[in-house]
């Protein structure tokens, strides 16, 4: 009998990124399993955001960026594909600061499906409602879907961007410090949402909140200076005995 070992959802091999002469990622290799929540921690300028941007290839829009290495999603080398638009539809991306597009709440969420060619009104309405519910925003905005998304409060806008990131039905969700601009109550609500979503998607969570990583993540990766210092079970990373001294220093605030 053959034991089935699940193929990893995301495989990154020897990924190196330079912005101009400045290295942002150095030789990073890691794999992410399907339906896993992987937390990525690390100080500012450690390459966390760059890692996410390599995944949906928006790093290509950075004129000075040079990328080497291999990134595979579902065994497909995404650095070779010409169809970045389909790739990006498979990946939902939430930025640290909420970016409500200057459109109505409805249009913000319907944007991606429309750009993908969905015109049917009923289908769009259904999808908008589902995504807003998933992002725990529906009840607050259902009566004013056709007012501006940019008029919402910061926390609501962040949930709006999460709804937008879900609107193209991604299989991977990347959240880049999604909670730095929102209040703790909303943060907890979104965390509950993430726990539900993990049944359907793989989640990469860049965070600097130790407790948040502990609450959500199966494994945690520690990036420092563009280098992957350590990737291990979350409890191990935050314990008193991680494998690397620098991890301990960082998670325990010893860093100067």
């Amino acid at each position, binding site marked *: 009998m053959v034991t089935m070992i699940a193929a990893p959802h995301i495989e990154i091999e020897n990924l190196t990124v330079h912005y101009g002469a400045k290295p942002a990622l150095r030789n990073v290799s890691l794999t992410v399993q399907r339906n896993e929540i992987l937390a990525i921690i690390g100080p500012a300028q450690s390459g966390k955001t760059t890692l996410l941007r390599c995944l949906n290839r*928006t790093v290509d829009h950075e004129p000075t960026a040079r990328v080497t290495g291999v990134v595979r999603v579902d065994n497909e080398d995404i650095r070779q594909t010409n169809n970045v638009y389909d790739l990006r539809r498979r990946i939902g*991306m939430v*930025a640290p600061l909420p*970016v409500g597009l*200057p459109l109505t709440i409805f249009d913000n969420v319907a944007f*991606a499906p429309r750009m993908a060619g969905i015109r049917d009104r009923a289908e769009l309405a259904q999808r908008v409602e589902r995504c807003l519910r998933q992002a725990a925003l529906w009840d607050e905005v259902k009566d004013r879907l056709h007012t501006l998304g940019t008029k919402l409060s910061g926390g609501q806008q962040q949930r709006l961007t999460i709804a*937008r990131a879900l609107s193209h039905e991604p299989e991977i969700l990347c959240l880049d410090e999604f909670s730095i601009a929102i209040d703790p109550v909303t943060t907890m609500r979104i965390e509950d949402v993430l726990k539900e979503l993990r049944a359907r998607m793989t989640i990469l969570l860049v965070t600097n909140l130790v407790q948040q990583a502990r609450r959500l993540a199966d494994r945690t990766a520690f990036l420092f200076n563009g280098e992957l210092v350590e990737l291990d079970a979350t409890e191990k990373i935050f314990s008193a005995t991680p494998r690397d001294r620098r991890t301990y220093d960082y998670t325990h605030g010893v860093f100067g």
Partner: protein
Amino acid sequence: MNAPMPHLFAVTPLTRKKQRREQLARAVFFTMALLLVVPLVLIVVYLVVQAWPVLSWEFLTTNPKRGMRAGGIWSALLGTFYLVGFSLLVAAPIGILAAVYLNEYAKDNWFTRLVNLAVINLAAVPSIVHALFGLGAFVIFFGLGKSILAASLTLAIMTMPVIIASTKEALAAVPRSFREACWNVGATRWQTIRHVVLPNSISGILTGVILQVSRAAGETAPIMFTGAVFFKAIEEGNLFAYGLRDQCMALSMHLFTISTQVPDVPHGLPFATAVVLLGTVLFINTLAIILRVWLRSRKKW
């Protein structure tokens, strides 16, 4: 007893100094604004007062008569509308689309930088140089002859660099985060431009185009060599009295000739012509401002 606490809102020498500076700054800026507005108002009032006896509907709709010493300005007014209209028809689409390419698509390399530098420099070239280029290129080389077509194209060449520059400014004012949000959900560059960038920059783009309307209407040099004539009578009241290959009269040129080239012109005539030229520009600007206010009311951030 301790010494009494100084009152929280007590006036200290520092606050007095800050207040004096604040008043001074305000006074300086106010004076400058006044210096700007007063001469402008005086000029307009003077022009209108001098022109008043001559201005009438008939003045607008009849050709000049008796060697420009009587009659109206119909052929010059219509000529100016033709020149401005056709030059805009050429310059605005090309200029705006080129600016979209330069700002949204072009990679930042030496060639793009060279093009940008050329655009900025072209915008600063005096109009008489454009006039000579128009004469050489359109009138002679392309064989268009002296015509509305050649003159409009010359005006278009003159206004295009400025339209490109101002459009680029307007596009650059749209936050990059909007574009990234669109790219992140799989929108192409064109979809991003069409649905997010253009709707949010259109009022700024229009402002740039509008300023060039005034400039095209007021310039004399570029049309003098390429299509504007001293005198031409056309059918009065017919909006299609000019053909594209015809030569035409223009308000700016007409003002120049009756003020300096023709003896014994009645006193009010040049003033009236100037008022009409001013009024034409104001009219077009007003249309544009209305359009802009309407578009801005739909702007979402």
